[in-house]
Structure formats: structure tokens, C-alpha cells
């Protein structure tokens, strides 16, 4: 059993998600009676492998899922993959995987590039670190879901504006439902992002004197993301009762994912003291990316 679990690699679930994505894309090309089963089967197999991989890491590395940037990205991808599987089962005719699975694969890709070093050692700081990580996870997942709904809204609205019948095998949810999701996810994303940032400030205070400076790239980029999300949510709320408010919300949701993706890319390449164990800094070890 141990050999089996330790043998599960990232390739296992990435390959399963990729096949499920390929099945979703094939909706545009041909009809098939068995595609739905194959798609859900591969997505479920990927999710099981993904779960076992995270579980095995938690046991073998004595870590919890949010203990390193690597685990954080993988957990975010797991949440979105689980969401996809649920949507694929409850709405089999909606090609939601075409939008959601690329985000899942991108997050797994970010995990591969991210550091596997645990964030912190101190027990007091770990509690705040988990709160901080959880809020950041919640807002990132909300942004991703909102962007998917926003993209689908724009595609559906484009089709309705051009007065074309729906594409075969590409039936989108109604604008009403998609607008509801974009509005709600933007709101959730904004407030969990604020909570994540505030908990980050508390965490920084708890682990003084080895705190992360305000000028640290991670602090700056997270500050920008939080500011963007709060402004985006404010604009969405202000325009909701105006003509075209849903379109503005859809565009802002998509733009929010772009901002988050830019922030993650920046985080992967810029050196930082964020999340680096104090002992490592004191020992003069190199700084890591989150």
C-alpha cells in the first residue's frame, strides 16, 4: 500500500485532467454517447490520485496541505477540480471543464515551479499562517470560479447579440445564472482577500522580529490584488442596477483572474522573505519564492 501511494505522482492526475479536458474540447467536433462517462471517469480518477498525493504528502512529510507554496497551489487546484467534477455530474451538457480545467492545470504547473520548503516552524505563527493561507486559498478559488462564469457570460452574450442558435454540444448556462455567480464570487473574493491580507499583517506581527518588510514583492503584489478586488467589487455593486451592469461584472471577473495570474507569475520569479522559515534566514540560506 505504501509503495502504491508513494508511486502516485503529479503526472498521474495531470494526465487524467488533460484527458478530461480533451474530452470537453471534443464536444465542439463530434457527438458521442460515451464521452460523458469517459470525461467524468478521468476527472474522478484524477481527483482520487490528486487526493491520495496530497494525503500521502501530509503523512510522509508530516506537513499539512497549506504548509508550503507547493502544497498551497495543489490544494487550490484540488478544490477547483472537485468543483469541476461536481458541475460535470450535475450539469452534464455544460462544457464548464473547457474553462475550469485549464485553470486547474495552470495551478498544478505553478505548484511544480513553486518552493516545497515549509513556510514556518513556530507553533504560534502556524495558526495565523493557516488562517492567512486559508483566506488566500478561498479568494483565489473564488476569483477562478468567477472568471470562468464571466467568460461563459461573455460567450453566451456574444452569441445572443449575434442572434445565432446555440452551438451543438456547447450549451451554456443562462446569463441570469452566470451573472449571479460572477457577482457572488467577486464579493466573496474581495472580502476573503481583505481577510487574508489582514491575517497576513497579524502573522507578520506575531513572528517579529523576522517579519516580512512592507516592500517585499509578495506583500506589494498581494496588496495590489486586494486593492483590485475591492475596487472591482465596488464597481460591480455600483453598476449592478444599471443597464450593462452584468457585462461589467463579467469583464471585471475575467480581469481579476488576469491580475491574480500576473501576481502568481511575479511571485514565482521574484525573491522574497515571505514564508521563509526564520531559521533559514538566520542561517543565511537563500530566499525562496512563495
Amino acid at each position: 500500500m505504501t509503495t502504491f501511494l508513494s508511486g502516485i505522482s503529479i503526472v498521474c492526475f495531470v494526465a487524467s485532467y488533460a484527458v478530461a479536458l480533451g474530452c470537453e474540447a471534443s464536444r465542439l467536433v463530434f457527438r458521442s454517447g460515451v464521452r460523458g462517462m469517459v470525461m467524468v471517469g478521468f476527472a474522478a480518477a484524477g481527483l482520487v490520485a490528486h487526493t491520495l498525493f496530497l494525503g500521502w504528502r501530509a503523512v510522509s512529510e508530516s506537513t499539512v496541505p497549506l504548509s508550503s507554496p507547493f502544497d498551497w497551489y495543489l490544494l487550490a487546484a484540488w478544490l477547483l477540480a472537485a468543483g469541476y467534477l461536481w458541475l460535470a455530474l450535475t450539469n452534464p451538457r455544460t462544457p464548464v471543464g473547457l474553462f475550469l480545467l485549464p485553470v486547474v492545470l495552470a495551478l498544478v504547473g505553478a505548484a511544480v515551479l513553486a518552493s516545497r520548503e515549509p513556510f514556518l516552524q513556530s507553533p504560534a505563527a502556524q495558526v495565523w499562517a493557516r488562517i492567512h493561507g486559508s483566506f488566500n486559498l478561498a479568494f483565489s478559488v473564488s476569483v477562478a470560479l468567477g472568471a470562468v462564469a464571466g467568460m461563459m457570460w461573455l460567450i453566451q452574450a456574444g452569441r445572443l447579440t449575434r442572434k445565432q442558435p446555440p452551438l451543438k454540444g456547447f450549451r451554456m448556462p443562462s446569463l441570469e445564472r452566470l451573472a449571479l455567480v460572477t457577482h457572488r464570487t467577486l464579493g466573496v473574493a474581495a472580502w476573503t482577500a481583505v481577510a487574508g491580507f489582514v491575517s497576513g499583517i497579524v502573522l507578520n506581527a506575531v513572528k517579529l522580529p523576522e517579519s516580512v518588510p512592507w516592500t517585499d514583492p509578495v506583500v506589494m503584489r498581494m496588496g495590489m490584488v486586494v486593492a483590485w478586488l475591492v475596487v472591482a467589487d465596488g464597481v460591480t455593486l455600483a453598476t449592478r442596477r444599471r443597464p450593462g451592469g452584468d457585462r461589467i461584472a463579467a469583464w471585471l471577473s475575467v480581469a481579476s483572474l488576469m491580475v491574480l495570474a500576473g501576481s502568481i507569475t511575479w511571485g514565482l520569479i521574484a525573491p522574497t522573505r515571505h514564508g521563509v522559515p526564520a531559521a533559514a534566514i538566520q542561517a543565511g540560506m537563500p530566499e525562496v519564492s512563495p
Partner: protein
Amino acid sequence: MTATATKAATTLSLVGGTHRTVPLELRERLAFSAEQAAAALVAFRERFPGREGVLLSTCNRVEFYAAGEHEAAAPPAEELVAFLAECRGLDPGRLAGVLTRQADEAVVKHLFSVASGLDSMVLGEPQILGQVKQAWSLARDNGTSGPLTGGMFQAALRTAKRVASETAIGRERTSIPSVAVADFAAAVFEQFDDKRILLIGAGKMAAETLRYLRAGGARDVTVVNRTASRAVELAARLGARPGSFAELAAELVAADLVVSTTGASELVVPLSLFERIERARGGRPLVVLDLAVPRDFDPAIGERPGVWLYSVDDLAAACNANRHSRKREMPAALAIIEEETLRFMTDVHHRATAPVIEQLRAGWSETGDLELERLFRRLPDLAETERVEIRQAFERYAAKLLHPPLVSLRSESQSGPPLGLLDALRRLFQLRE
């Protein structure tokens, strides 16, 4: 080859006319009500005893499917034409000129196409399948459906299900009201039960569109008309609430979906009117199905954010796109029909071999029994279990000898009745005809 062997033992025959071949005026007179169809089937049973018959009568077609076997072969087409003319009190000469006749495999292929909606006025429409089922059921009830028509109609239903599930021929909608509601209004709104529907005018498409909206859950429906009494009358007929045309602006503010079908020669809702009420709507999306010709809504209103305006031309274009989409599925549907026709005809042709096989089996069995009796008389000390073993060995031997000719007959049945093989078997084993 004997004279009997050259004749197929089973025959299928079809006489009928559709919207393509029979003028509407004659089609109306030829059509059968359910009672008339039942009476016609009873008359058929009396006129052609031992034959099978199914009458399919819809608003677009009247077709009589007849079948028979051996001595009681299906009646000739001309007799069926005369029979239909007699049933409806029409001149047989006039009918003979417009009704089409088909025989055997062509009958099967035609029925499978009809049941699958490929021969319908609207390609792929599903209602015909129910009508085919009803026709068969009526024939069963009146004792004119037997193994041949039963098998053929059962196969037709299976074929129609295959065409529906394996192709998209019936998926896309092709009527303006259904496309308006399913492909456009339902793409904007998740549900209609919490939406306010406004009908402006009393055009013929209003009621049909409302039927689809009601099926989607619409409950809150208001009808306005320039003539107040007409609005009240329409509202009562459609189960809606009458509104005042003078308060059209207020109704537009409250509405989520508007179906407009007035006969007005000028715009009923100009852009200036919409601009006045736009702010009061609070940014709620508005779907407008302008089914009037000339249009009731200024097309510029469709450019306003949150407004989804569709005219008859827009919806007709979507219907045409759907029709083209259905046509693209034709080759796949026809392939299924070919496959199912071959399967059914193989079974039908194979049925003709049954008497010969039965005689062959009976002859061998009789010879085997005689030989066994002689053997058991010579070996009186055999135990009962040994006798059973020997008897079973004889039966297995006979079955194995019979297997190759059976396979050959089945294989030959795919390309028609295996008359040559049957004749050869009869002559080789001296079977009676």
C-alpha cells in the same frame, strides 16, 4: 428451379400519399379519423382474409401498409388503391394517379424513414413516431396486425429511437416560437416562473409562444391591446391578466420578457419611449420577441445594454440554421435506416426457410428414431441411462449436420429470399413443396 421456388413467400406492400404527392384538397378527403380508420381495418380484414394491414393517417399523409405470406400474399397495389377509394368514397381513378406504390424492401425503408421523421414536412419532427405507434396499436386492436407488420412496426420504433439518440436530427428546434423561447429567452433567463411576461397585440404567434413560455414555468402574464375589450377577451382565453394599452410604458418597466405581435403599421415602442423608461427598469435584462410584421419595436432598442431584441427575421434565420444542421445529420440517419432495413429483411427472408428446415429436421428425426428402435431391439441389455445417452448422441449428431445448411440459409437471406438454396434442399432431400 420449380415455379414455387421462384416466387418470394413473403410480400409487403404500401400504397399512400403525402403532402408532397397529394394535393391538400384531396388529402383532406382521403384522411381517416380514428373511428374511420378502425372501420377501414375491419373492412380490410373481411375483404382480404389472412392478410395483415396497418393504416397510418395524419394531417400530412395517408398510407396503407399490407403484408402477407405464401398463398395469402399482400393484396396487389391496385386492389389497395381501390379499397382506400371505396372507404373514403373517392374516385379510384383519381386516387390511382396520385398515390405512390412500393413493395417489399422499399416498404420497410419507407416506414423506417417515416417513423424517424425523415419523411416529415419538418425534418426530424418527433410527433410522427407517436402517430406510427397509434396506427400499429389500432391495427392490433382490430386484428389486422400479425407477425409481419408487428415485426416491421416494432423494428420501425427501434430504428426511430436509434436515429433520435445517435444523431442530432431532432435536436435543434425549427419553429419560430420554440426557437424564440428555447434558444434565446431561456439563454437569458434561468427560469420564467419569477418573470413578468407582457404580450402586446393578438397576433397568431403570441398564443404559440406563450405555450412554450408556460411550459417553461411562466405564470405572471399580462396582455395589452389597443382595443381594451380584445385584451380582456385574449387574457381570458390565455389565462392571463388584461392590461391597459395606455399604460404601456409602465407595463414595459415591469416586464422581463415582451412578446409583441400587433398588426400596427407604425412602431408601437419607439426608441424615445424606451429611453424614458430605461432608467426605471433598474438595469434588469429585457428580452423582446418582436414577432410582428412590420416590427413593433425600434431595432435601435436592441442596441441598448441589457436588451435582447429579436425580430421574426432574426428568429427565422436561427430556424434555418437549425434546419441546415438537421440536414447535415441525414447521412448518419440514412445509414441507420439502411442497417435496420437489412436486419429486418434478413429476418423476413429467413422466415421463408422455416417450413423447409422444419421438414428437414422432422425427416432426420424420424429416420433417427427408426434406427434407434432397431438398435435397442438388437441390444436389449442396455440400461435406461445408456439408452438416453445414445439417444442424445443421435440428436447432437443431427443438429450438427443441420447447422451448416442453416448458416448458409441465414447468410443467403441477407441478399433476398434464399430460393435457390431452398429448391436445392428440397430436391436433394426429396422434401415436399
